[in-house]
């Protein structure tokens, strides 16, 4: 989903797809009405989004020593 141009309908499709529900089902309509007016849900989804971002940004770089040990282990030294 394009984050900049996400519409409510796309969000609903996404949530309802995960629930296996049709977009026009009573369950999805009730979810949409709730989401539109619920600060609690918006805060919750923001913290889930942050959780994912934290782990995305946490990268580890391979050290030069680990690279050498790898090439040595594989018999592919320069």
């Amino acid at each position: 989903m394009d984050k900049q141009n996400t519409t409510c309908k796309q969000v609903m499709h996404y949530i309802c797809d995960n629930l296996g529900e049709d977009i026009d089902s009573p369950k999805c309509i009730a979810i949409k009405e709730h989401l539109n007016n619920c600060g609690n849900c918006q805060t919750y989804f923001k913290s889930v989004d942050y959780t994912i971002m934290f782990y995305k940004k946490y990268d580890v770089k391979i050290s030069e020593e680990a690279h050498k040990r790898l090439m040595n282990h594989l018999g592919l030294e320069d």
Partner: protein
Amino acid sequence: MTEEKIILEAQNGNRQALSELVKMYEQTVYNFAYKICRDRDRAEHTMQETFMSMIRSISQFSGKSKLSTWLYTIVSNHCLMMARASKKKFHTSFDDDDALIDEKSIANWNVTPDRVTENNELKEILDEAIKKLPPDYRIVFTLRDVEGLSTEETGNITNLSIPAVKSRLHRARAFLRNELNETFQNG
């Protein structure tokens, strides 16, 4: 030279091409292995075993999937094997969806994700939280949300059905969010 050509050369026993493939993917494999193992020594061991498997089986690589997908599969299997061997018990129950979302604990967080790159204390908190997840949940979360693979690709790598991937992803997200919430919420 394109990756396809390098793989073909490697399949014909070209040592230089094999070396080139290892160099192209060592950072991806090490990073992914670290994200699953959460330990530098284990990540390095997994990376070495993954490339050893790649060299042994490169002639069988058909090109139907991406080489990166093939490598993710080897890393995932290796990590699951190590986890089974360690016989570590995971005490958290992931069967009760209601217990994973506690309405009373919803609050704004006082930290933003861009701080993670330079903050070791924050990294420790993230490591401790994800280590509590069973390995299959950790792998699904990392493949889908962190590495950005599709549900289908994640299912193929982990040998899980699409509903099983979705259910593990939902539970892993909710669990990690709850673990971090205890530290990051205001007040």
